[in-house]
Structures are given as C-alpha cells and as structure tokens.
C-alpha cells in the first residue's frame, strides 16, 4: 500500500487544513472568527472555503445579524471522515519513514 495515496490533496493547503481543524472542534464558526483564528485575508479565506464547500466538506449557512450578513460554516460528515483519513495518513507516514 502506498501511504501517500491516502493523503488528501484538498488538505495540502495549510489554510484549508486550518479551517477543517477549527471546524472539527467547533459546531459552527462564522467567517470573521475563522479569519481571525487563521490570520488570513478575506479573499484568500473565501476562495479556500469555496474549495472545501465544492468538495462537500462544509455546510454553509447564510444568516443575518440585524442587517449585516453572518455566514457560518460547519463540517459535514464527509468532511469529518476526510479529515480523519488525512490525519491517519499523516500519522502513518511519520511512523513508517523513521
């Protein structure tokens, strides 16, 4: 078995991996909190969130607080599975290349 095959290409980006890490331990996180946590710019974060959504790893919920839009993100079951698989692959690689 080739362990590199198990590493998820989507998570090669540090920001996408970061988004998934935050969402693994938080039920729902809004755009601004993600931005603050990951220290990235609006545009950068938005494009990575899009990629994750297209892969079916994120649920997006567009709401309002007063007149301001408040978009929140949550992880999907598929996202959780993919993230755990990626973690297992990382672990495997470190263990067996030593």
């Amino acid at each position, binding site marked *: 078995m080739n362990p590199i095959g198990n590493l998820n290409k989507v998570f090669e980006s540090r920001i996408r991996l970061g988004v998934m890490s*935050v969402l693994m331990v*938080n039920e729902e996180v809004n755009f601004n909190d993600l931005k603050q946590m990951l220290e990235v710019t609006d545009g950068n974060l938005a494009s990575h969130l899009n990629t994750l959504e297209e892969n079916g790893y994120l649920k997006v919920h567009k709401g309002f607080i007063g007149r301001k839009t408040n978009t929140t993100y949550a992880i999907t079951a598929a996202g959780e599975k993919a993230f755990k698989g990626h973690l297992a692959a990382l672990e495997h690689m470190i263990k067996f290349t030593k």
Partner: protein
Amino acid sequence: MTDQQHLQAITDIKRLMERSSRFISLSGLSGISAGISGLIGAYIARMWLVEYYTRWETSGAYSDTDFRTLKYRLIALALAVLAAALAAGTFFTWRKARQNNLPIWDLTARKVLINTAIPLAAGGAFIAGLLFNHLETLVAPTCLVFYGLAIINASKYTLPDVRYLGICETILGIVNLFYLRKGLYFWAIGFGLLHIIYGALMWWKYERKKTI
C-alpha cells in the same frame, strides 16, 4: 511533501484545535484580584452588619426601615464588588492576552462569557425571587451554588482547572445551607479565599516562568 512538512501540519492542526476551543488567556492574577475585592467587600459588609445589630441592641426593638436600608446597602455593595472584580479580572486577562499576542475578544472568549452568563442569569433571577419572598438567608448559598455551576459550565471553554474552583464553590454553597446565619463567612471564603488560592495556583502553574 517531506516528513518535516507532515510534522508541521500535525502541529498546526493541534494548535488550531486548541486555540479555537479554549480561551487560554485567563490570568491567575484575575482570580487573585477578584478574591481581594471579595474579601474587602465582605469586610465592609461585616462592619455594616455589626453596626445594624448594635443599633438593634441599643434601641431594643427591630426596625423595619433599618433592615431595609441595610438590605439595599448590601445589594449595592455586592454589585460594586462584582464590578470591581470584573474590571480587575478583565485587566489582568487582557494583559496576559497581549503578552501572548492573542486577541482578548474572540470566538473562545465569547463562549466562556455566554456559558458563564446563562447559569449566572438564572441564579440572579432566582435570587431576585428569594429577596421578593424575604428569604434573605438563602441568598449567600444560592450565589455560591449558581456561581459554582456557572464556572463548571464555562470550564469546557477555558483552562480545565477552573472546573475544580467551580466544584469547590458549589460544595461550599451547599454546606452553607446547613449554617444559614453564617452566609457572610461562606461568601468571604467562596468569593475571597477560594479565588485567591485558585488564582495563585494558576499563576504558579501557567504564568510564573514567563514573568521571571
């Protein structure tokens, strides 16, 4: 990707999981300053109580106006102590957050606040009900129990050690129920002493090395 990069990825994941789920800037000095405000408040309250009972003794009769004045003064004092404790507590936590280059107001801070506020608001309403029904002796134990439960609830989102403080406060409140007339002493222990002990332990455990 190299091994180094894989390790880096795992470190990133771990850091972000921790950083986004727990508010770690809570300073031990916040606990100590809150405890000192609590002790000063208890001391003032005791002076007022002694004064009240002395007046009762000398006049020989219970006075309704005296009692009402005392009650409102004590409520005002409790609010002032709460404000002082919150202000000092926020200051030291703000300072610790700044030293560690972390934002003081973020997702985790909000979670701590909301999860403390819910049981505290319930406790506040409960106490208003006690005062309404003239059950003043139950106020101190109720404060301690609800405060303890509030902290236990918030401990999931901050330093896990806070949980033990919450458990101690809750037990103290329940014990107080069996020594009703000693409410002020339990208050002084719960809001004064326990905070100081907890704060000192936390400072020793998490902040000592960085300050020296």
